């Protein structure tokens, strides 16, 4: 997909004119992942998906156009979403990050600066709105 590139820099930053922001969704629960991926695609984003942190890192390495990562915190396989978020902040600092969890309390200090937290269950519309707000500039 190249439609996200070549956009004139002074183009009006209206959200609907911003059709192909690439978003990486990291979620181990298949049904939840499928649903949020389709919602984000319907909202006009280019969506890549991973079911664990290792896959996510591979996809990030292969796709430099990813602007936003939306990740679950509680995932199997040793690296949880917070550690993933921390390594993304270190390696790909421009990527905006949204983390989500069913646990109510999240140590906000553990979150990267350009990050937001959402409790599960989240509403896809809120996720979409957040992604648009975070990528406005």
């Amino acid at each position: 997909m190249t439609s996200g590139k070549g956009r004139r820099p002074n183009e009006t930053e209206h959200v609907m004119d911003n059709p192909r922001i690439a978003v990486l969704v990291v979620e181990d629960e298949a049904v939840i992942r499928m649903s949020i991926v389709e919602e984000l695609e319907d909202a006009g984003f280019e969506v890549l998906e991973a079911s664990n942190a290792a896959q996510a890192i591979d996809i990030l390495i292969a796709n430099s156009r990813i602007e936003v990562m939306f990740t679950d915190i509680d995932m199997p396989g040793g690296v949880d979403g917070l550690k993933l978020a921390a390594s993304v902040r270190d390696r790909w600092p421009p990527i905006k990050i949204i983390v989500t969890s069913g646990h109510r309390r999240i140590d906000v200090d553990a979150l990267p600066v350009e990050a937001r937290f959402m409790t599960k269950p989240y509403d896809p519309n809120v996720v979409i709105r957040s992604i648009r707000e975070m990528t406005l500039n």
Partner: protein
Amino acid sequence: MTAVTPLHPEASLSLALAVIASSSAPIVLLDGNLCVIAASTSFYQAFLIDPKTAAAKKFSQLGAGEWNVAQLSVLLEATAAGIADVHGYEMDLKRPAQNTRRLVLSAQKLDHADASVRLLLTVADVTDARVAEKVKDDLLRDKAILLKEVQHRVANSLQIIASILLQSARKVQSEETRTHLTSAHSRVMSIAAVQQQLAASSVGEVELRSYFEQLCRSLGASMIHDPEQLSIDVNVDKTVTDANISVSLGLVVTELVINALKHAFPNQRKGKITVDYHAKGKDWTLQVGDDGIGMPAKADDAKPGLGTGIVEALSNQLGAEITVADAMPGTRVSIIHRDDVVITDAPQAA
């Protein structure tokens, strides 16, 4: 009243020794050189010491040397010299072929008529109590972890249910079915919001204001396409309710807000929905109003939907009455609970 007869000195010594011997808590009477004068049967039994070997022996030489603890000896000497007291000194009693026991020792110099130095040493074995405490602490920690885990699972399950409902809404062709499915999604999210409030509280109670605010934010996010056009105002007092009542109130709010969004503002009409909740004592009033087009002239022509059924059932469960009024413009639905069935005409302050 009979006066207490003073004891003869020999009799009083014999009484003292008898008291020590029969003490159910392990105690030892020492002289100024820390030699054993007497000890309770409970002491000998608890620490497996033969009473015959103990008489006149130094305390530190009892048993197989397990009492020979340098720090304890120093403390006891200081106590004998009158410059310290042993109070709650803890030590591990290590004996060959025996489990280590955790002891708490206290010693004090006895104040008595005789000039000779006497120390009373008490020895409490707290091993079992400590184990029980640790088991209790572990259980409490396990319980807290389990509770967090359950909350996490509930949240995840609700997310799966919400995802499936939204997926279904996306796949169906019929607009009516889609509306039903998105309403069902909103209902699930309404219950989920209570769950999140509960997870944040430790007492199983929900702060209605923050709950309704979260609920209406979420309803707005999923059902209002243009926030410039429609808004939801929440005006709730500081009421705190238990989880069950909160779930019912939240579902009522969800239904009434969905209903207003669906019917009150056709053709991109601008407007506002207000959610009010106020309690006074045990009485409370929940109001959801809008400034939309108002009720249809003939309310009976439409078959009441699921939403109406839910509001009626829950109001009934809450012991509340529903009134629907023309708010000119718009509609105002009030759910009123009066704890006192007999309405008293208390004079109102002007």
